């Protein structure tokens, strides 16, 4: 990234990426999780370009259709195409989980780095505040926040994001503390760098892989939390839809049309499973010490 004097440096970095990729391919859960995650993202992007039907088209005539040539997965009790709703739901899940992770990283990681760098009182205050936030079960605090701010996709993003902050703060602090003891940090200090600079320029790049893995796992949790909030009617609002909302609507139809609950349910399970597998695999692949054991 620095000076682009071409040379063996780039070749070796490329080789290292290659190596990660190759080891990744040998890692089963990394591959399976990666494929599911990729598919999920593709579907989310697809929703902007194309859905089989518009989900705002209600046609009561066609309600509760079983899968057929026009409606590949059938229709719900308003006659909306279920496949289209699943695709749009994927998009909403991605947006909510993604922005929530952004909030978690954007606030949590600096907090964790500052806590690790300053120790003493600042550390205590930050971490005790974290513990306080963390002590509430995530879904309860999310319900509390949406209850205060009102339901809606944006507020559910904020709620899930706030829950992500202590998670990232803890991970960042723990990882940063182990690096503060390293000699190259002492060397950086002897070059006249202040603690803040060292935190962001030396420690952050070193804990990056740990944060990525955590982000993958939080992504799955975020999707689950979004589904939970929407299921309770606190998340995505009509006319848009999300998997949790579909589950909610399916509940009343459970005896007449159980398939309405099965589709979004399976979508949630598959996606979260895929993300968790991917996160696990990513940790093993990025950490050379773990790689050998598998």
């Amino acid at each position, binding site marked *: *990234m*620095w*000076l*682009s*004097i*071409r*040379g*063996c*440096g*780039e070749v*070796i*970095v490329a080789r290292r990426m290659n190596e990660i990729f190759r080891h990744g391919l040998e890692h089963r859960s990394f591959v399976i999780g990666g494929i599911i995650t990729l598919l999920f993202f593709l579907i989310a992007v697809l929703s902007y370009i194309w859905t089989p039907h518009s989900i705002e088209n209600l046609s009561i005539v066609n309600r509760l259709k079983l899968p057929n040539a026009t409606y590949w997965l059938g229709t719900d009790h308003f006659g909306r195409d279920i496949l289209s709703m699943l695709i749009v739901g994927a998009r909403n899940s991605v947006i909510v989980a993604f922005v929530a992770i952004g909030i978690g990283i954007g606030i949590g990681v600096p907090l964790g780095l500052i806590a690790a760098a300053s*120790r003493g009182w600042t550390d205590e205050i930050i971490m005790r505040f974290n513990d306080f936030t963390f002590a509430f079960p995530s879904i309860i605090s999310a319900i509390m926040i949406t209850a205060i701010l009102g339901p809606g996709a944006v507020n559910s993003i904020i709620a899930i994001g706030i829950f992500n902050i202590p998670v990232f703060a803890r991970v960042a602090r723990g990882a940063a503390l182990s690096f503060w003891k*390293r*000699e*190259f940090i*002492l*060397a*950086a*200090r*002897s*070059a*006249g*760098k*202040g603690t803040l*600079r060292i935190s962001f*320029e*030396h420690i952050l*790049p*070193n804990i*990056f892989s740990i944060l990525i893995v955590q982000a993958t796992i939080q992504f799955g949790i975020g999707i689950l939390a979004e589904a939970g909030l929407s299921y309770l009617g606190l998340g995505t609002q009509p006319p848009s839809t999300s998997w949790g909302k579909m589950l909610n609507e399916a509940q009343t139809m459970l005896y007449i049309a159980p398939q309405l609950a099965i589709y979004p349910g399976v979508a949630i399970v598959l996606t979260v499973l895929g993300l968790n597998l991917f996160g696990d695999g990513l940790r093993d692949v990025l950490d050379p010490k773990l790689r050998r054991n598998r």
Partner: protein
Amino acid sequence: MSLLHLENLTVSINTADGPIDIIEQINLQMSAGDKLGIVGESGCGKSITALAIISLLPEKSIVSGRILLNGENLLDLSPAEMCRVRGNRVGMIFQEPMTALNPVKTIGAQIAESLKLHLKIGRKEIQDRVSQLMEDVGLPVRRFPLDLYPHLLSGGQRQRVMIAMAIACEPDLLIADEPTTALDVTVQEQILDLILDLADRSGMGLIMISHDLGVIAQTTEQVAVMYTGNLFETGPTAEVFNQMAHPYTHGLFSAIPKPGHSAEQERSRLYTIPGQVPEIHMRPDGCSFADRCGHALESCRTQDPPKIDLGNQHLAWCFNPINRTDKG
């Protein structure tokens, strides 16, 4: 005015049983361009002295006395002001080159860091300066592109990068804390030559910290022998090493393996100083070396040893120095 003047420097660490002095009342002085060696066993306070100068001591340590760099007391500076001293006016090289470089940053970026921090120069100039520094430390950019990562370099090459980082801003004082201890003997020589050469060329003062008397003899003009946080003997290196007055210095020299001349000497065991360095919290009254010293007198165990002036700036802290006429 001297470049560096340590005045009654005392470093103590707060423990559950109250503060313990790890460095007691050290006085040292060096002028611009001087090369000062600090020699002593592990745990004698060599590195602590160095870290005290750039105020990077572990938390909970208390420093008193004065550390004058060009007449300015570094202990009076705020942390922010101290950051402008480190790397800019005082550079430091560490013992372990394998761990002293950040593994995820390129060597070019790491050398450029203190330049960006301390000098107000443009991107292009920084780039040129980094290339020049690489050249100076014997890593021409043709063969060692700046975007290499540290793990691709050998220990000696990494130490060269460390040296480039330390001298990047042309400091007045370079502290080398056992710069060659972790290196191969063959590389050791090259690194010492490089440090000496750079110090001579830019006229910066050098503090060479080592337990290796050979390294000290080779690189320094002045030497300070330390033991349990005290100075035992200071003076011009040649004089101290040839006419040592302190029994401890003598013991250190006797413990160097020498190729024997007679068959008997060849078989004889290597001399060791008897006993062990006293634990930091159990230092005896009087001279801390008394229990291990063959020359100890009664007074050594009760009173602090006096400073004796042997002329020509050669000082020793001892009741019973080795007679300078019958030195071995």
